[in-house]
């Protein structure tokens, strides 16, 4: 096998007739060009045109986008929403923190009007959430935890110990055995790298 081709931004890779564009590339006048410095990857699946992408050692998705799952840390809460710092997009850690908001009505899918934010999150909690909107000029990224797999994954009790989930809405401190309310995530193995 020949060594993989390297390219830099602006390199013409091929015509659109030969391949369909993947990530790290752009189209211009019927040709596909590289927009990254990386390895050229051609993937062929079935009868369709092979997909051409440019990949780097680190994943290229650097920004939270609508629909992506993010890991965040709760920084402050009030009755209407919880403010968070987004730490990860998927499994890629972000170098710079982005701020996000989980509104009260986006905490869970059922009985939305009975949600109380302080029975769902506490500052310092690590939460899995999904981006629902990039927000507007005033607001931050809007996130939701209204899915079974989303919600608090790591939380510490008043005593400072890491709590164990006991139901979808409660966690317990292993030291003092006190129970605290949280919107607990049913952790799925694919997100359990943390």
């Amino acid at each position, binding site marked *: *096998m020949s*060594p*993989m081709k*390297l390219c*830099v*931004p*602006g*390199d*013409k890779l091929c015509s659109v007739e030969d391949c369909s564009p993947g990530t*790290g590339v*752009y189209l*211009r006048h019927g040709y596909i*060009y590289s*927009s*990254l*410095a*990386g*390895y050229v*990857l*051609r993937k062929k699946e079935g009868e369709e045109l092979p997909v051409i992408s440019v*990949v*780097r*050692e*680190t994943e*290229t998705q*650097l*920004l939270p986008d609508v629909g992506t799952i993010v890991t965040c840390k709760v920084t402050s809460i009030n009755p209407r929403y919880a403010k968070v710092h987004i730490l990860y997009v998927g499994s890629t850690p972000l*170098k*710079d*923190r*982005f*701020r996000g908001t989980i509104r009260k009505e986006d905490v869970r899918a059922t009985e939305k009007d009975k949600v109380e934010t302080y029975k769902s999150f506490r500052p310092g909690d690590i939460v899995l959430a999904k981006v629902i909107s*990039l*927000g*507007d*000029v*005033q607001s931050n*990224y809007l996130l939701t935890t209204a899915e079974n797999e989303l919600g608090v994954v790591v939380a510490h009790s008043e005593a400072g110990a890491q709590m164990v989930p006991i139901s979808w809405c409660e966690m317990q401190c292993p030291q003092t055995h006190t129970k605290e309310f949280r919107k607990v995530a049913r952790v799925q193995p694919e997100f359990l790298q943390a």
Partner: protein
Amino acid sequence: MPTDTKRLRGPDVSKSPSLYFSKPPATVASHGPRADGRQRDQVDIRPIFVRCGLVSQAKGSAYIEAGNTKLMCCAYGPRETERKDETDMKCGRLITDMRFAPFSCPERTSWIQGTQDRDLSLMLQESLQPAICLHKYPRSQIEVNVMVLENNGSVLAHAITCASLALADAGIEMYDLVLGCSMRQDGASYVVDPSYIEESSCSSDRENQGCLTVAFLPSLNQISGLQSDGEMTEATLTTGVRTCIEGCYKLYPVIQQALASTVRKAAPPPSES
């Protein structure tokens, strides 16, 4: 004048010893070979040394050395924009900052950023912006910081090249690389990639004299930055631009190689499956 209370201050007045040199400084000849042995009236750029990814804290970084001109550039981001307005929602923002180390020029410069630095920062921004896929980075900003460690001419041109390398190293999506090249016209002859002395010397009252810097996207064949001062005829200017483009093309393979080796060093090729 307000005093700078955030830095340690020396005496109120101090002067560069160069004002009192017993021998007058050597002047540059306007003909014959150049001081560093390069050819006049030819696209004879200095050999450059480039390296990417030297700064551990930055998303991407590059260092460039052309003769004694040494610069460092770091790219950060995309990160949340500090100032928000409507256009940021669709498009990212590019922020550039270029500054000189106080010891980078023959005369010591002040820490406080002057108008020159700000103008260069603006030129840098305008030259880089067309090459970056900013629409891929809504709500965020990408920062490019350039520090000139030693100024021996053609700083802006090299800063542009260096910055585009840093951006590519940072994995910021770009339409093309941006390369910079400068030339100085002196009467009928010209020098490409001038040194500090060649840049600042104005030998006589001759006409057709000036400096030109071009930022060029080599693969798309587009000029993203152009700046000149002095006095030049239209013909000179046109050939000057062509000369600079030629200079950029000479730079291109070196830059491509540097980037490729960075990619190779960072990770082995992924499996093709």
